[in-house]
């Protein structure tokens, strides 16, 4: 069941409502840019080009965004993920033209993959970049809890006070964040089976 507010927002985006698009840009611009930036080896010029492609594809393809299938944010990150994958595949094809197949850019296969990037391109990205991109895919509250805990080294109680939640709620957020992150990182980054296990569960897609 789609959230009513999300449905209304997607509907407004489909109608070309500038205020709604403006709000969407404000809300997601930096995180989409950051996601792309980390996945292209911190290359600003490439990240800027890909980020632009993401947004222009989003505008042109907004009619395909279905509130019943997920949030606008997930859909937008799906585009970002495909654009980054396409970037690496194009690069690979350019460097090795003999590898051309009927689907040289692999666009048909990647929709079945749930990790940060499809496996065939994930290997080309530095691990830290993949982790940073995966963390950016987490919902805000899960990301805040996770970074508070592991990057800032805060206690659950401190995070709870800062977020205005109970300690129990923060524990729950952390648990869900870890679970989602395992799924996103997949077997390449989490080689001991974490990816397999996480991918078998529901809710790993951002």
């Amino acid at each position: 069941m789609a959230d009513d507010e999300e449905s209304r927002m997607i509907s407004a985006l489909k109608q070309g409502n500038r205020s709604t698009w403006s709000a969407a840009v404000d809300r997601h611009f930096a995180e989409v840019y950051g996601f792309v930036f980390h996945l292209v080896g911190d290359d600003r010029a490439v990240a800027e080009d890909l980020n632009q492609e993401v947004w222009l594809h989003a505008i042109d393809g907004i009619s395909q965004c279905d509130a019943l299938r997920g949030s606008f944010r997930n859909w937008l990150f799906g585009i970002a993920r495909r654009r980054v994958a396409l970037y690496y595949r194009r690069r690979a094809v350019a460097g090795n033209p003999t590898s051309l197949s009927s689907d040289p850019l692999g666009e048909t296969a990647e929709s079945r993959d749930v990790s940060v990037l499809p496996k065939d391109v994930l290997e080309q990205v530095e691990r830290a970049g993949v982790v940073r991109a995966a963390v950016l895919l987490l919902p805000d509250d899960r990301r805040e809890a996770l970074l508070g805990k592991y990057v800032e080294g805060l206690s659950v109680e401190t995070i709870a006070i800062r977020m205005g939640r109970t300690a129990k709620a923060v524990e729950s957020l952390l648990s869900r964040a870890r679970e989602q992150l395992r799924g996103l990182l997949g077997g390449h980054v989490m080689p001991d089976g974490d990816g397999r296990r996480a991918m078998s569960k529901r809710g790993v897609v951002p």
Partner: protein
Amino acid sequence: MSDQLNRDDERLARLVREAGDPSVLPDPQYAQRLRTMILARVGPSETVASATEDIRKADVPAAWERTRQMKRIAKFAVAATILVASGILAGWLTIGGGSTNIAFAEVVKALDAVRTATYECTMEMTNAMDGNTHTININMKCFFLAPSCERNEMWTSMGTGTDKANSILILDHKAMRGLTLAPEQKLATVVDLTKIKRPAGPSSPFEMVRQLVREGRSNLHEKVESLGKKEIDGRVAVGFRTHSNMADQIFWADPQTARLVQVEVDFGGDSGHGVMSNFRYDMALDPSLFSLAPPAGYTINTIEATMPGEDDLINTLRLIAEHNDGTFPSALGMGNREFLQATQAASISATQEFLKEPETAKLLKDLQAQYGKDKDGFMKAWMKAQMPFTQKLTQKHMQGMMFYNMLGSQNDSHYAGMGVKLGTPNRPIFWYKPTGADNYRVMYADLSVKEMTPGDLEKLPAAKSE
């Protein structure tokens, strides 16, 4: 199982810790450009009411501060408009938009063609901004590479001001393409002139003067007046005066080589004049000076020039009359006072509307946050960001006069609208004969247009008085 989970958590924690905070901010100028592009692609802006509401919500300067900033920004936009207009004007001068080049249709084959040349140009334009007359000084260093490439490096300043805006204009007359560069702002504008009909005749002043000197006579289709001889810098030169809708030009050339020594340009009335001098020929010039490829690191805009038409002149005349107490201007021309005042008023009005756009308000907010008390930095960044808007606006305002400027002697154009009120019935204010046509097009004070035979035109009272 529990141990495995703990190991997983520890590994994950280590990965996240090592990766660090993933937050990364895009370059603010890039972000703003893309934001504007995204919203432009979404569709037209909403009502002024919603735009105003967005400004109200935006937490940028207090009302008085915002007003002060807006005035300053609007004024700066006018300055930017002038800079852009100067570039366009210079482009049209060199590309032959002035009908001086157009009319010399029967070009003799070029003899001992100039391969390269450099010269200097100083221009002084007067501009009635805010009801006051300002002088705009343009100094140019010009480079020519046969057969058709020019590069003009311009420094523009207003009045006695020491702040000079530097811009570079590169043109390929034959390819009908150009490039303007604003080095300070790192802004490149690719100018596509391919939709403009390339004027017949010589493609550079050098070819034209060579023809004049060698033939020693006036072209039948052009008003060319011989000025005799004159000594310039110890050398004897022969002079010719030509006339076009854009400007009168005097060419002084070496009678032996047919090479230019000096060119004087007069835009008519008090609107401005210029001198080209210090011509030097056939030196080695780096072809890269004439490259039409924008330099690396520049923000690129594109202007696609469209062929000016009769409707553009009608729109310009209406604009002038609406800003001039309902009265048509005293004359037509880029330097006409009423034209400049009307286009500047319209520019300010359009800029103020532009400033009400939510994305513009957001841009200002971001720039203010970025530059803080660095007002110069702020204004430069703002000028760069709004340049595409300014260029489009300037292009729109100049189309009408460009149409007028492109009419040559064969078009037999006449303006008779001085002091005439917009809407006056049965009052012709302008007529011309389209190229290749038998009849004239007559524009009336209500801005309607009728076709008329040359015989009927003679019967018009306004035509008789011309």
